[in-house]
């Protein structure tokens, strides 16, 4: 049987990969994808913990996380489309008008 810690380590790995993606990549779409990776890592630990505790609460929280992720992806992508129309670039470093 797989101990709970294994699932949590996998979740930690995924979360770190997502974080690395957010910090290191210079493409807004890839940054959004890395955020999705992080959310999935969290989902995995929720379900693992839920099963460990013997309740369904873990799975239910997962639904809410998925829903929030969907809503955030939709709005984020709409923002990206709007941004792309003004600057023709997907590099976050190109949007520096507020810099002083």
């Amino acid at each position, binding site marked *: 049987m797989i101990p709970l810690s294994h699932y949590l380590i996998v979740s930690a790995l995924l979360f770190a990969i997502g974080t690395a993606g957010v910090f290191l990549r210079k493409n807004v779409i890839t940054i959004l*994808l890395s955020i*999705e990776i992080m959310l999935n890592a969290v989902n995995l630990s929720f379900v693992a913990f839920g099963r460990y505790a013997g309740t*369904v609460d873990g*799975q*239910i929280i997962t639904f809410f996380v998925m829903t929030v992720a969907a809503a955030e992806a939709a709005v984020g992508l709409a923002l990206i489309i709007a941004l792309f129309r003004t600057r023709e670039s997907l590099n976050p470093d190109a949007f520096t008008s507020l810099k002083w």
Partner: protein
Amino acid sequence: MPESVLFYVLSGVMVAASGLVIGQRNPMYSVLLLIVSFAALAGLYIVLDAPFVAMAQMIIYAGAIMVLFLFVVMLLNAPQEDAAGWDRVHPLRRPGVARIGILLAVVLVAELGWALSKVVALDSPVGARADGAVVGSVRELGRVLFSEYSFAFEATSVLILVAMVGAVVLARREGDA
């Protein structure tokens, strides 16, 4: 025994695919690799006795959110990072800031892993509930969702409505009706 084989294979696929996601230049490949990662995660959910969540993951994440990403990548014909003025080095191999970033990511993994394994250094996850109902049966999920989490459920529906309106408004062109 088959459970551990499945676990190692699926989590290996998932971590490898996610690692490749952040390493691809072409965002289209990133999206497709992430779909592979989500499919592996759905498999892990099935191993964890959560078939409904696994299917919800496939339908919502891999079936809807990723199609949305694919749409945007195709519509914008997403330029790759190293076009027009940026240097030709792969994003993850750039010196300086990137190396520190990778080092910090490794430190984060080590830290998270250590902390989480200290919290619960233990035996296998439990399966059935004390009163005999099977954890993860859809009936049980529905019962708990609509009784204990009903407020969160309603709030989520408002959230989706707001997101829908927001996405339509934000992506509109100037001068459109």
